[in-house]
């Protein structure tokens, strides 16, 4: 099968974003299937952004935020993100879309190896799930 998944990652710039940068500096490789976007805080990502990414063809969305309880630069952004995406996953399940297509990971800024590893894991998982269109070609 020549299908390759295409993923979007939103990273909080204070933790996961720094981890991604260190991964580059330290020459740690991770899957090229993911496009990473730095955002000021994972608490500002709306469920609309994530569903819109799916509608535009992303097969999975990766969200990286600060490890609770005390690492978020804005103190509570990671809790906001958790509540939103916990509910969104529940909602997606009811619509018949696999909730595993959203992955939340929590970091402190030096954990660049964890970032690379979880991204690779996520890509493998999405490869097993198949394309977001469920095999129907557009």
């Amino acid at each position, binding site marked *: 099968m020549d299908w390759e998944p295409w993923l979007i990652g939103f990273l909080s710039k204070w933790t996961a974003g720094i981890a991604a940068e260190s991964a580059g500096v330290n020459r740690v490789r991770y899957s090229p299937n993911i496009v990473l976007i730095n955002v000021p805080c994972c608490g500002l990502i709306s469920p*609309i952004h994530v*569903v819109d990414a799916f509608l535009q063809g992303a097969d999975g969305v990766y969200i990286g935020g600060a490890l609770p309880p005390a690492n978020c630069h804005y103190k509570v952004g990671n809790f906001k993100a958790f*509540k939103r995406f*916990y509910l969104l996953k529940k909602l997606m399940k009811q619509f018949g879309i696999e909730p595993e297509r959203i992955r939340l990971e929590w970091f402190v800024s030096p954990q660049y190896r964890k970032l690379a590893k979880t991204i690779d894991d996520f890509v493998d998982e999405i490869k097993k799930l198949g394309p977001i*269109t*469920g095999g129907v070609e557009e």
Partner: protein
Amino acid sequence: MTRYAFLELTSCGDCLSELYMNPEINKLLEEGEIVYWPAYGIVGDPEEIGEVDVTFIAGTVRTRRDLEELEKFRRISRIVVAYGTCSIYGGLNGLTALLEPRAIADGEYVKLLMPTVKPVTDYIEPDILVPGCPPTREVMARLAKTLKKYISGGKPEKKIFLIPGEVLCKHCPRRPSNPEKAEMPGIRDPNEVVDDGRCFIEQGILCLGPVTANGCNHLCIRFNHPCMGCMGPARGVVDQGLNMIGSIGSILLKSREVKLLFPGLAKELDKLRDPMGYFYRYTLPKAMLTKLALRRRGVE
């Protein structure tokens, strides 16, 4: 003489009867003539009716015949009024949007159904949109006023949306004194409501007010029932359910989240058992996730 047509697609049939009974609209209808209303025995072949001035459409497009009739009447009428939430957002009929036709009908009837249910606005461009389930008396009066303007000829230059469209909470009688400090103390069952005039969300009851348009004069809220979202999304709201999830994420247990941590928050969120049914009761066919789910089935 003004010629009116009443077109009921798949609907409960209540909206247009109520519209007919409204005194101001009824006066307009008495001066004119109703040329088509099958539900009340005024039938005819749409091809032979000729030009119609105003067509009121209620309901969703569920069957293939609905779509044929809808397109015919858009061609022959000067002004089309999409009346009721069903015709604009899908309404309660829209709850079948994710079911396959086979799950709804048997045998040969399956062929009569469209692959999914969609509101009228997905197929044609109405001139006047009147949301509500059903629209209130004030909105009907506004509709009568608008129709009088165009009765002798001409049509609106752009779509007229007959409700203000601002967020329901803006003028809510239960609005908290300091909305920025509002906090949801957990998720509770609506039957635990105490009528003490406090904001429902501050009591832990999910109320769709933050994402719903105003146009109902807070009818449910004044009678101690949280908003169910029947007026459709407010101006600026992309998707009722997803925006509501955003609001809940901001205010649920916001002073205790550092103590509860993720497991505690998850336990609280699990009390909301049916988010789809609650958030999309009236707008399921317009939901972004419905679009995604239907695309996977090969239905566009």
